[in-house]
């Protein structure tokens, strides 16, 4: 809820509990992934299948040992989106805040399931699995989302992209996961990256 020092009062706890129960009725989590061979190009680029991504120096290090990667999309579902933007939630800034946090947790949990599944598949091919990374983060431009979606079936899990590369339903995550015999699962990028202007590092500080 924005701060580890925040202790929610009983009213806030009860509202959050009610919304979590309500969210369970609206969320329909789905994920999809496809595994491709990949190769690095220089210190900032990665070629996955027939797509060339400018992932930047931070992410390139995480893909240094990757011979393959999984392109994925995961979502809390369109019904959650409709609820989130419906009259009850959208008209109340406090509910918006709580439901946004719940939606992010659902999407992140769906990504964790995706990666678990990818890791199991990769394991059968004697490959290890790294952390997932998404366009928009760690210096990887959101505009490359369109290229990433070309690696997945059309409208994967019902997710659509707008011209800016943003996804609908909003509570969706897409990205790539490094795979390979020599891939080592490191501490998550945020634990080792010192990108000064990233909000995650500011939270860390």
């Amino acid at each position, binding site marked *: 809820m*924005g*701060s580890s*020092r925040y202790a929610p009062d009983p009213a*806030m706890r009860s509202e959050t509990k009610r919304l979590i129960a309500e969210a369970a009725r609206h969320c329909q989590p789905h994920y999809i992934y496809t595994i491709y061979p990949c190769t690095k190009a220089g210190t900032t680029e990665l070629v996955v299948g027939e797509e060339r991504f400018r992932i930047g120096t931070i992410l390139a290090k995480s893909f240094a040992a990757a011979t393959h990667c999984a392109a994925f999309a995961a979502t809390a579902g369109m019904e959650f989106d409709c609820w989130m933007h419906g009259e009850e939630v959208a008209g109340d*800034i*406090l509910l918006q805040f709580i439901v946004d946090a719940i939606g992010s947790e659902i999407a992140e949990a769906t990504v964790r399931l995706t990666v678990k599944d990818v890791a199991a598949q990769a394991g059968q091919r004697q490959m290890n699995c790294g952390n997932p990374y998404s366009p928009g983060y760690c210096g990887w431009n959101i505009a490359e989302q369109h290229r990433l979606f070309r690696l997945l079936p059309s409208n994967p899990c019902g997710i659509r992209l707008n011209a800016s590369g*943003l996804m609908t339903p909003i509570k969706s995550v897409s990205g790539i996961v490094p795979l390979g015999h020599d891939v080592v699962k490191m501490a998550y990028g945020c634990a080792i990256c010192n990108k000064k202007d990233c909000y995650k590092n500011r939270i860390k500080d």
Partner: protein
Amino acid sequence: MTNNEELYDAILNGRLETAVAVTRQMLAAGADPHGLIDHSMIRAMEEIGARFEAGKAFVPNLLMSARAMKGALELLRPMLKGGNASSSGKVVIGTVKGDLHDIGKNLVASMLEGCGFEVVNLGVDVSSERFIEAARTEQADIICMSALLTTTMSYMKEVVAAVRTSGLDVKIMVGGAPVTEHFAQCIGADGYSSNANAAVTLARRLVLG
């Protein structure tokens, strides 16, 4: 406790139902809507904002106060229309193109509204053209931009350049987790704020020129 104090207390503590009930009661007793706004509501929002900035209140507390303020304000709105009410200024606010994070931006919008500004919220993924069009149509005093990602905050520079080229007489303020004072200066924005309360202070300063 007087009714004014009760309203102040309800908004400060984020009690929506109480804020609405007391406002209704005061209006029925003939209270001046402008007096309610000035003497109770804005004061309460300023106090919760100050507590937030001092680390004594948190985002949910701000949101609860903003919600209580909004509920009470809804009752007053019909009485303010066509009157001689003067707002603190008009702000067009949005999250920049490529970015869909809007919780912080909505919080700033609520605080501005709670502190007497007229706010036009353009939502997320807002292009420079939309910022300019809205600022022109609404005759805004300030364009307020937000971004959460390092990969989208650079778009703020494009918006600032486009606004300057357009010749619009409007101030530009920026905020969002990756944004800094230095970045704001580099892109030519008129101001930066690190939180919702500071955004209100900055907006007031910019409007006064």
